């Protein structure tokens, strides 16, 4: 296959899924294709933004040779903490929203740091470390909230104003877009990105080259915590509450998006553009299935088939290249 073609392979996948969606989308009463409706398209983007942001950082973690299973729990923790601060904290001051948000995201970065330290310094397998974190953080979120949803207020209430701001479609989509560009630049043009790939591809060679392996891994997990924390903030704003039981299986959706985007779980390789495309493919398919009113449980099964098919097509492509 020509190099430019294989480079845009996942882009072609996206195009195919898009065409599929156009063809199979139900039509509105005026004959227009509902899928192509601007409101619907922007809904797809907005619905995928949380997973999309998590998947960006997940890409880096996976390239470093690891995985982060704790992000779903972190979303719940972040949303709950934010809601608690906004609803129950009565302190005065001009920018309480900003402080609450910074506190929630900062705490999540700290969780990422703990993951990173255990992975990089104690050298325990990332799967096990983040699986434990996934369990522990879910517990923390439920304990903290007494397992209750913390609902945002209405009207001119602080939390209501906050929710109104951060559930704005355009803002959420823009945030995802900007972060995508930042992560892309980070991976492709910086020292950190280069080290990340080296460490993920051949850790021993990285050590023999004198690369700062532990620091690179640590940074990847901190970014993952940060991204999940931010996704939690957006999630709280969108659902108008902090629910300690939300975010379940987000980590798997994020990993699926990364994998569909052509990043192998073996580390060393991968791209941010692929992950964005993977997230969009998942989003469009979900949207299509929902527009056709297909049962949500059937939807899960179809999703699974799509993931396997996408990865299989990539492996076929690779072996035909070799």
């Amino acid at each position, binding site marked *: 296959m020509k190099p430019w073609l294989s480079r845009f392979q996942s882009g072609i996948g996206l195009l195919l899924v898009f065409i599929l969606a156009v063809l199979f989308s139900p039509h509105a009463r005026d004959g227009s294709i509902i899928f192509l409706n601007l409101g619907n398209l922007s809904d797809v983007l907005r619905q995928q933004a949380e997973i999309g942001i998590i998947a960006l950082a997940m890409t880096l973690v996976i390239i470093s040779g690891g995985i982060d299973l704790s992000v779903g729990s972190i979303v719940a923790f972040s949303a709950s903490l934010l809601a608690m601060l906004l609803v129950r904290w009565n302190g005065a001051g001009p920018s309480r929203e900003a402080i609450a948000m910074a506190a929630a995201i900062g705490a999540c970065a700290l969780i990422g740091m703990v993951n990173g330290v255990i992975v990089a310094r104690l050298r325990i397998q990332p799967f096990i470390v983040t699986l434990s974190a996934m369990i522990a953080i879910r517990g923390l979120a439920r304990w903290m909230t007494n397992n209750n949803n913390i609902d945002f207020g209405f009207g001119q209430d602080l939390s209501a104003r906050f929710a109104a701001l951060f559930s704005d479609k355009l803002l959420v989509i823009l945030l995802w877009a900007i972060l995508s560009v930042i992560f892309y630049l980070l991976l492709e043009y910086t020292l950190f990105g280069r080290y990340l790939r080296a460490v993920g*591809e051949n850790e021993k*060679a990285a050590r023999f080259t004198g690369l700062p392996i532990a620091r690179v891994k640590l940074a990847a997990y901190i970014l993952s915590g940060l991204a999940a924390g931010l996704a939690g903030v957006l999630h709280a704003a969108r659902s108008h509450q902090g629910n300690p039981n939300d975010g379940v299986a987000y980590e798997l959706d994020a990993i699926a998006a990364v994998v569909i985007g052509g990043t192998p779980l073996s580390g060393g390789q991968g791209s941010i553009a692929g992950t964005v495309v993977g997230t969009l493919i998942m989003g469009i398919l979900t949207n299509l299935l929902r527009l056709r009113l297909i049962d949500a449980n059937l939807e899960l099964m179809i999703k699974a088939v799509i993931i396997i098919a996408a990865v299989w097509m990539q492996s076929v492509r690779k072996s035909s290249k*070799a």
Partner: protein
Amino acid sequence: MLECKDIRKHYGGVYALRGVDFSIRPGEVHALCGENGAGKSTLARIIAGVTRADGGQITLDGQAVTIAHPARARALGIGIVFQELDLFKHLTIAENIALAHPDFPRSRVDRAALDAFCRPYLERVGLDFSPRSMLGGLGLAAAQLVAIARALSMRAKILLLDEPTSSLTEEAAERLLGLVREIRQSGAGIVYVSHKMKEIFRIADRVTVLRDGRHISTMPAAETSIEETIRLMVGREIDLLSRVESAPKEECGLRVNDLSTRRLKKISFAARRGEILGVAGLVGSGRSSLGQALFGLHEWTAGQVDCLGKNYRPRSPREAMRSRFAYLAEDRRSEGLFLNTSIRHNASAAILPALSRGGWIRGAREKALVREELARTRTKMAGDTLPVSALSGGNQQKVLLAKWLLTGPEVLFLDDPTRGVDIGAKEDIYQMIEALAAKGKTILFASSELLELQRCSHRIMVMCEGRCAGILETAASSQEQIMTLATGQASL
């Protein structure tokens, strides 16, 4: 018995075999010779059903066969012992032997029957371990013998041995040669792939030489010689014995006093600037440990080292690099290369901080610096954005040399830099080493090939079991002398 005709195989754009004919008769040892990359292993793997040929045909006892799978090869009576052993570390010897054996049912394990079945084969290969010992604890040499015992247990009519003595001691290798003769006597045909010419000429009946995937010649061993075979393998004359002319300077480059680590015992030596100090020693003698300890990869338990006149005690490779010390690792694939990464990014991997400003890599500067260095190391490539895995072993090594030269080192420890490198690239590497020494760099050149140490180095340090067994002036040294020191039979 077995006849291969016009066998072809290519990987991507690289041709491993371009139409090779090969045959095995009953009761003969047929040696397969060639340099690295000549196609020996590929041919053996095709015969054993591990790799599929792209073209050509194989006939067995006059009938055309397709060997699509190792199990098919086994059923046809073809056994293979790979260079990289295909054994299971976490199973016992007996389990390894019986695992794929057609005589054993999968459903029920009768340990006593297993043991009784394996014992005679273990005895034949001279392995006196219990059949119930775990393979992982045995060491490479014993594992090799287990692999051979397994092949024997299949009652193979054709046995392929791929570098069977590469990890054996002299004694064990001797026993193996005896065993090969015995198997030959029983009427089996043996394909013997090896680099060791002396061994080949002691046991082979016929010798086939491959070069660049082509069949060059098949001769009765009695009608040819080591010299002729090597000439056919290489395809041109080489002068391995042209010695270095440059003279080292007076100043000291690296002075090591009583360096000890977990594996090293009180190593002391000094190398001057402009000197090439050969480091000889058998596998496991501590050659690589020395390089890695000096590069800050292992903890020192004692010792004092001066590098370029300054006290030197690196706690990490980065500190070592700052003191202008570089270590070219022995195992290129696992310790040096990022195989799927581009040539350019491999070459720049050690100097990225210097190439970046505020964390951003300056791409243009990287490109220019790497291009220049790769040209200096005479790396042949279609472009430096290709993955480094697309290069031959020799060119991969040149990329790694470039990577270390870019760090601007004054003292270089080159750990077996010509391992798995073709002769042409070897010559390039020797010349590069000499040029570096002529520029006043201190070179420590570790190698298993005595000939190349004698060709390049001013002096040769011989290591044995983590100690420095002696340091010889190259001009006054003989291979026997070096081997005596390396095997611990004498010390100076």
